[in-house]
């Protein structure tokens, strides 16, 4: 076994400023290059090159510069951005945002290493997303089905249970009978949230089905930028190398974007909208476009990013630009949350653009798409009836509108609401949807095929699907 090329260490430290080390006399060093900072005591820290000018390199130290003495420092550059070993060794492990163990175990090993930066899947080698990932959440599985290879964000606001929902999906999601894994990347989490996530997902991690990457709020921002890239690198190799269907859950992407803004400011870049860097769109795309399926290869990478909209503003740059890249969205509603319903998914604002590729005959259940379409239509009518009732009073509504108005609470409590540890099979979710729809007269259910409706309303045989 060879030790490889001898790395050159640089010892001329011009300045220590906050988390930054300015190194002089460097040559051949590039942006985003990974470095190791060795202290006189032998302690080692890690860093990323933020800026290079002439023979100066600005390195952000991941572990911080506390206790560093510039006279005894040696900075060594790896010659490339961060690489990590990849493979099944990640499954069952809990690590920080740069891949160092947080579970008391040894470092993660793998047969090969891959650059964390990664690349998007070549468009001509892409296989369109297809087949569902079942989350065990009725509102998602029945109405906004997540499809393998899709990128479907959750739009939330502060105070809503988006972390609980993300964790529940991470704990429950499956791809019926096929090899499935979850990579959960938490960014900017408080210690309490990190503890909650770890507790909730430890069982699945122990079963060797999940990899947990936790970047806490007090961790360096540059590590927060690495976290989703590391998660995707791990996922890509589990999927396209190991033939698994991998769900990558990334929360909170707004926290990621804020870290990107901080690093951009440290690099002295010209700020764009709301001080985010002008390349925020392409940066987010460089993450989200790493998911998908590849022609001729087994496995898939599906991405479920969670982002909080500051002040609930959907036009904020982060949700706005995310919406351009992703294939639909799951929107959480403060009003539904206030009604004590969990998960507070606003079905009318939510959409899975690829649902037709993952649901319906031969994929989930033959009646799935019809039931979902009818329920969404009924909800839209219920919302109209509610608005009309607010203006003109309920007594002014037509009998049909009153039926829709009466249906809405049934939908909230008998379909949408489910326990935080309740996993619903797709059949159960669709049966719940049917029960809501059957509170309406058959004449209002025109989007359902007559045979399907007769089977339900005629002899009452449940699940009688032609």
């Amino acid at each position, binding site marked *: *076994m*060879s*030790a*490889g090329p*001898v*790395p*050159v*260490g*640089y*010892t*001329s430290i011009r300045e220590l400023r906050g988390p930054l080390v300015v190194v*002089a*006399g460097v040559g051949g060093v590039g942006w985003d290059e990974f470095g190791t900072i*060795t202290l006189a005591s032998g302690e080692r820290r890690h860093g990323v090159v933020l800026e290079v000018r002439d023979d100066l390199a600005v390195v952000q130290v991941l572990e911080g510069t506390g206790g560093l003495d510039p006279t005894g420092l*040696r900075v*060594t550059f790896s010659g490339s951005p961060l690489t990590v*070993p990849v*493979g099944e*060794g990640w499954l*069952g492990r809990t690590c920080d945002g740069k891949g160092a*163990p947080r*579970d*008391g*175990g*040894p*470092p993660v*090993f*793998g*047969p*090969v*290493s891959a650059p964390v930066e990664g690349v998007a899947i070549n468009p001509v080698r892409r296989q369109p997303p297809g087949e569902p990932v079942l989350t065990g959440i009725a509102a998602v599985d029945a109405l906004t089905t997540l499809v393998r290879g899709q990128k479907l964000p959750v739009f939330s606001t502060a105070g809503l249970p988006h972390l609980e929902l993300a964790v529940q999906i991470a704990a429950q999601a499956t791809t019926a009978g096929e090899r499935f894994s979850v990579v959960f990347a938490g960014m900017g989490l408080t210690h309490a949230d990190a503890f909650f996530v770890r507790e909730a997902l*430890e*069982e699945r*991690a*122990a079963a060797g089905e999940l990899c947990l990457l936790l970047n806490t709020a007090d961790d360096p921002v540059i590590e927060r930028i690495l976290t989703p890239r590391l998660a995707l690198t791990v996922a890509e190799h589990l999927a396209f190398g190991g033939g698994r269907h991998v769900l990558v859950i990334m929360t909170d992407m707004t926290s990621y974007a804020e870290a990107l803004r901080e690093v951009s400011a440290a690099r002295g870049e010209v700020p764009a909208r709301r001080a985010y860097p002008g390349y925020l769109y392409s940066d987010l795309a460089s993450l989200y476009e790493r998911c998908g399926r590849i022609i001729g290869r087994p496995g898939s990478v599906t991405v479920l990013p969670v982002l909080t909209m500051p002040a609930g503003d959907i036009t904020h740059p982060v949700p706005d630009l995310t919406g351009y890249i992703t294939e639909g969205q799951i929107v959480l509603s403060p009003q539904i949350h206030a009604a004590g319903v969990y998960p507070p998914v606003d079905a009318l604002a939510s959409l899975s653009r690829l649902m037709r590729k993952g649901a319906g005959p031969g994929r989930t259940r033959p009646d799935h798409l019809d039931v979902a379409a009818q329920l969404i239509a009924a909800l839209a009518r219920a919302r109209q009836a509610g608005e009309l009732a607010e203006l003109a009073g309920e007594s002014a509504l037509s009998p049909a509108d009153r039926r829709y108005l009466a249906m809405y609470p049934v939908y909230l409590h008998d379909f949408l609401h489910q326990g935080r540890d309740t996993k619903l099979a797709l059949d159960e979710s669709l049966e719940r949807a049917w029960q809501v729809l059957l509170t309406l007269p058959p004449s209002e259910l025109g989007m359902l095929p007559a045979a399907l409706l007769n089977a339900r309303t005629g002899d009452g045989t449940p699940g009688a699907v032609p």
Partner: protein
Amino acid sequence: MTSAPAAAADPLAPVRAALVRAADEEAERLVAAARRDAEATVAAARSRSAALLREARHRGQREGARAAAAAVAQAHRSARAGLLKARAEAYDELCRTVFAQVRRCRREAAYPTVRDRLAGQARRVLGPEATVTEHPHGGVIGTADGRSADLSLDAVAGRVLERCGAGIETLWQT
């Protein structure tokens, strides 16, 4: 003068008898009603207690199942944590052993040759003017104009260990 009729002994007797009879019947009705009430109350209490018992039994079963699941999950977690800790210890022990063995090579006859080769390597990387000093734990450190090359035995061994990759996992894989 005529005498009063003898012994219309108690003219109220029929009335009294009727009242007593009515009172007896009323009492019987009341007693019967009270008995029925008592039986209904007892039956309701029995039914309620049976329902409570059933509910308590179900709740106990649920809580027991939850506690058992939590205990199993906790046992899994502890086992997993123990496994990871043991692997970390094995890895640390490997590193300690490797460093100790590498440092021991200073006592071998070939060490001066190794040291000279390392010094040559340092000069190739840093230039012929580089200052090369021997590291206290073996190997050399080259320095030149704000640059350094760590070719101490510890650093070389560390780089070799880093490149071992998944091979290290054979420590705990059978």
